[in-house]
């Protein structure tokens, strides 16, 4: 098998694996007519829990600059628009990293 074929085979496998995770949860869950309230609450919590899990190492376990920048982003998000809050966070991290933190 050529290197090119091999690479494409892998890419197709990765695409398939990714797609499987994207429909897997729905395929399992759509089999149930009635959903238990605890399962319902768990599923409602998915966005907040997973997004938090993605961010938290950057917020707490990367460095002082990143921790401060996440704090600035959180503070901004109470008042400011999404893009402005993101910009505030990114500017914070750029300035603090440049200053050697």
């Amino acid at each position, binding site marked *: 098998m050529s290197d090119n074929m091999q690479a494409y085979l892998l890419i197709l496998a990765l695409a398939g694996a990714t797609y499987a995770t994207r429909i897997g949860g729905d395929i399992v869950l759509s089999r149930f007519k009635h959903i238990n309230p605890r399962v319902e609450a768990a599923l409602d919590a998915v*966005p907040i829990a997973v997004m938090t*899990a993605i961010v938290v*190492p950057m917020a707490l376990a990367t460095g002082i600059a990143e921790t401060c920048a996440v704090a600035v982003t959180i503070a901004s998000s109470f008042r400011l628009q999404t893009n402005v809050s993101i910009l505030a966070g990114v500017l914070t991290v750029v300035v603090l990293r440049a200053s050697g933190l």
Partner: protein
Amino acid sequence: MTPSDSSTRKAHFRQGMTDILPVLVSAAPFGVVFGALAAEKGIPFDQILAMSGLMYAGASQMVALELWGFPPPFWTIVLAVLAVNFRHILYSASLGRKMRNWPVSRRFFGFGFMVDPVFALADAQSPTHLSGSYYAGMTVVLYPLWLVSTAIGALFGNLIRDPQVWGLDFILAAYFTVLVMGFRSRPNAFVIILATSLVAVLVYLTLGPPWHVASGGVAGILAAAALVKPKPKEEPDAVVEQGS
């Protein structure tokens, strides 16, 4: 189909395109960085584009890239990608509940484009029934942008020598932070965030990435399940939004 159905759909479609705009600011640099790193690794241009076009999953593409070799270790990469993408199973179980009125074929097609911000925005769009037009509006903007930014990175990647200096690696984290803040009024949000953070940090520092995402996420949803109070009486059915 009545005229008002059609105009509602158009409005939803446009709203989807508008709501995804802030995401472009973080997705585009991410795509450029992916394309640049992939080209630097020596992966041919067509294969780089195929990864973005067929996988359409930035974080796992980065992980695949890190493990890539000549020849690439097949099962190691497949397993790593599955681990990074495990969170999609939760997304699909959660969001699928709001897509029950979609035709099965459309559901299966739509799930192919469920990336993190699209899931979060779709989840916030309606408490019960997700509009297909809204979902399509987000996707027709974000998917082409992902391909174009990947291509730009692969072709002109040398423009960005060090993403860290410009804080490009931080944009995505900042975006997710804002998303989480948007969900803060949901039931038990604070406890869920606390449980998730605790487990995610612990796992990140011990097992290391990418396991902190799945384990932290599961910790958060278990906390949510544990906090359920006895069910209040049924509310009357909300108005069902049809033909989306």
